[in-house]
């Protein structure tokens, strides 16, 4: 096994390789240094900021509408799977703190074909996820309009699509032209959201245990406490757990990666899991299944209204807008890292990682993220978008766990993680089984779309990058 990637792609470009020294504060290459500037709070903000938009503000209505209070179990299952994957990911990330995250680990651990498939489907998975967040944003914006008295008559669906598309265009343009660092803003938004949620959930829990009484509307349908529906809802809502892998895509920029990467990934999964389960508990305590089903994507607004009156509804609407925006923004950010990681290894034309001189932003990569996002957002297919995003991520998660087992067995010289998952192969094997297993509970259409995406990316490998060898290279 060599330490250097080899081979050339169809354009005759070879992967860019060099020896670098990683310190806690910077990556030192031969002639230059790359500052690590994202701290633990920044990492947690990326993880949590990506996740809570979906899990708290979009899914409770859909998941609670299907199986009632049992949806709490679905979220718990999702959290356990995410944790089983977050631990192996942490080990890989501390050994290879590079841009590209999951793509990098899999291409080095398992070889170029899986690497290409995952690198490209990480990009496309993020595209599906971003489109999903934007559609969520559209639904919240519609509710916000209704709240201020503007009622949309004929085609509310078209309005949601329009808002999602406009937001998608705006995010892409802002990311290409914006040179202000939005990271501090993101941290602030996440802190604000967390405090709003803690207050809201605290009140909801007081109500649930009878310390405070509000009128909860009566409902008929009962909760569905059965394994298959719970797992199938878990597969749907798994999109609410995609954020921790986004932390890995900025691994190259994290300060003290040996400590901060595991803390940020595992910490953000634990925090959001608790919040999700509590949210479902509160939501299903206020509304029965059929009421949640009727309220749909923005059911949480009705929950807020029932608990705290119009002010509660307003808080949830504001929170929903902020959270879906922060999810979409964080995802676009990691998409550009994903594309860069792949094109650096010559699996995509190097044009894809061009930076424009005027703004210093990777406009081609951002366009490759924003363009398809806008098209997908227009479809307004919340469930399909969410499940395809989950499907593509779950494949990556499963393969990351496999990569960990493989790389531990091969033990390249450079493999020296700061964080080691305890228990030998148990956790990565369970993580892989759970990730692949959850796919089986998805909607057949989502699986078909996901498989098609994978097939296209594999085709791209055979067409463009067949000669490139990345396995075992650092």
């Amino acid at each position: 096994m060599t330490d250097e990637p080899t081979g050339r792609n169809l354009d005759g470009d070879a992967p860019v390789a060099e020896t670098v020294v990683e310190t806690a504060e910077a990556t030192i290459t031969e002639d230059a240094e790359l500052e690590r500037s994202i701290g633990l709070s920044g990492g947690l903000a990326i993880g949590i900021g990506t996740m809570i938009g979906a899990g708290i503000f979009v899914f409770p209505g859909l998941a609670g509408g299907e199986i009632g209070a049992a949806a709490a179990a679905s979220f718990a299952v999702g959290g356990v799977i995410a944790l089983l994957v977050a631990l192996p990911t942490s080990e890989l990330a501390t050994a290879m703190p590079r841009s590209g995250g999951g793509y990098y680990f899999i291409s080095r651990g398992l070889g170029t074909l899986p690497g290409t498939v995952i690198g490209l489907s990480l990009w496309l998975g993020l595209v599906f996820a971003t489109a999903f967040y934007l559609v969520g944003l559209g639904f919240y914006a519609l509710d916000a309009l209704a709240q201020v008295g503007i009622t949309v008559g004929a085609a509310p669906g078209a309005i949601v699509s329009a808002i999602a598309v406009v937001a998608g265009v705006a995010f892409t343009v802002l990311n290409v032209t914006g040179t202000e660092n939005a990271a501090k803003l993101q941290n602030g938004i996440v802190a604000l959201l967390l405090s709003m949620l803690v207050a809201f959930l605290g009140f909801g829990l007081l109500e649930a245990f009878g310390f405070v009484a509000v009128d909860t509307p009566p409902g008929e349908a009962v909760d569905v406490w059965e394994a298959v529906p719970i797992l199938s809802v878990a597969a749907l809502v798994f999109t609410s757990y995609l954020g921790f892998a986004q932390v890995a895509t900025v691994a190259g920029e994290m300060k003290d990666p040996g400590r901060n990467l595991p803390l940020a990934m595992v910490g953000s999964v634990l925090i959001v899991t608790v919040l999700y389960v509590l949210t479902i508990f509160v939501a299903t305590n206020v509304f029965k299944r059929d009421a949640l089903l009727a309220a749909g994507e923005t059911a949480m607004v009705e929950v807020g209204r029932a608990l705290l009156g119009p002010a509660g509804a307003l808080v949830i609407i504001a929170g929903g807008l902020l959270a879906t925006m922060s999810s979409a923004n964080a995802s676009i950010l990691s998409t550009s890292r994903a594309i860069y990681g792949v094109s650096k290894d010559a699996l995509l034309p190097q044009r894809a990682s061009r930076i424009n001189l005027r703004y210093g932003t990777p406009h081609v990569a951002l366009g490759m993220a924003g363009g398809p996002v806008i098209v997908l957002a227009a479809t307004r297919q919340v469930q399909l978008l969410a499940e395809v995003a989950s499907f593509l991520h779950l494949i990556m998660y499963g393969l990351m766990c496999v990569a960990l087992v493989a790389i531990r067995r091969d033990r390249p010289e450079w493999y020296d993680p700061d964080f080691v998952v305890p228990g030998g192969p148990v956790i990565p094997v369970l993580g892989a089984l759970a990730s692949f297993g959850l796919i089986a509970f998805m909607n057949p259409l989502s699986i078909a779309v996901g498989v098609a995406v994978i097939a296209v990316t594999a085709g791209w490998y055979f067409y463009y990058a067949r000669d490139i060898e990345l396995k075992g290279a650092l």
Partner: protein
Amino acid sequence: MTRVLVPVAVLDGGGVSPGLMSLLGTVDVTVLGYHVLPEQTPPDQARLQFEERATSALDDLSQEFRAAGGAADHRLVFTHDRQQTIQRVAGEVDADAFAVTGTTGDVDRILVSLSGDVDVDRILSFVEALIGGRDIGVTLVLAGGSQAPGDDVTDAATSEGTDAADAADPRLEAAVGRLREAAIAVNTVVARDRSAFDALIDAVPDHDAVVMGERAPSFRSFVLGDESERVATASVGPVLVVRDRRDSDGADGADAGETAASDE
């Protein structure tokens, strides 16, 4: 040897004015070429595209510094956070001061601020090394609210003079004595009722560069921006910020790693 870190926005047309270059001729220089990237851009990606151009610009710059007198080397950093990069590299090369580049011609007279809680001893040694026997005059500025020990001067009037006689502050007197001993022409400005920043900016005319001490980040610097940056903006000329290492001397020695082990 005294070392100064000169950060330069190497790809954004940042340069070093001839005046600053010759002023720094008496000391060693590390040119820190940096390029700040928006967070959408992985620093590594920018490196692949811009490294060659940046390195050749830095080679030229350090060549010019060497021609001006002292030893010079360079570092190149791609970063999201300029301040963090300057602090890190300044620590790693064990720099005594870092520059905020501004425009100036030949330097005849420099302004040295001793206001506030700064490491006066270090600032003075730095000024001595910087002037290095050349015919460059110094004006010391001390503004009100100074926390110098034994600061019992209650007169709130602004006094200005070319003599140390009306500077009743013991810290200032000691400083004047020390610089005169090194054969440096010294003036003083005492502004009891002004803030350190205002006093410094008021005194800027007729001076070509500013030397000031580094201060701990405060609420003020959080809201208004770093003090040295504000001085540089207001004074147009270059600013040399002497690093405060009173707390971290031991740690720095260990980091420098050169003779630390044999010293202990």
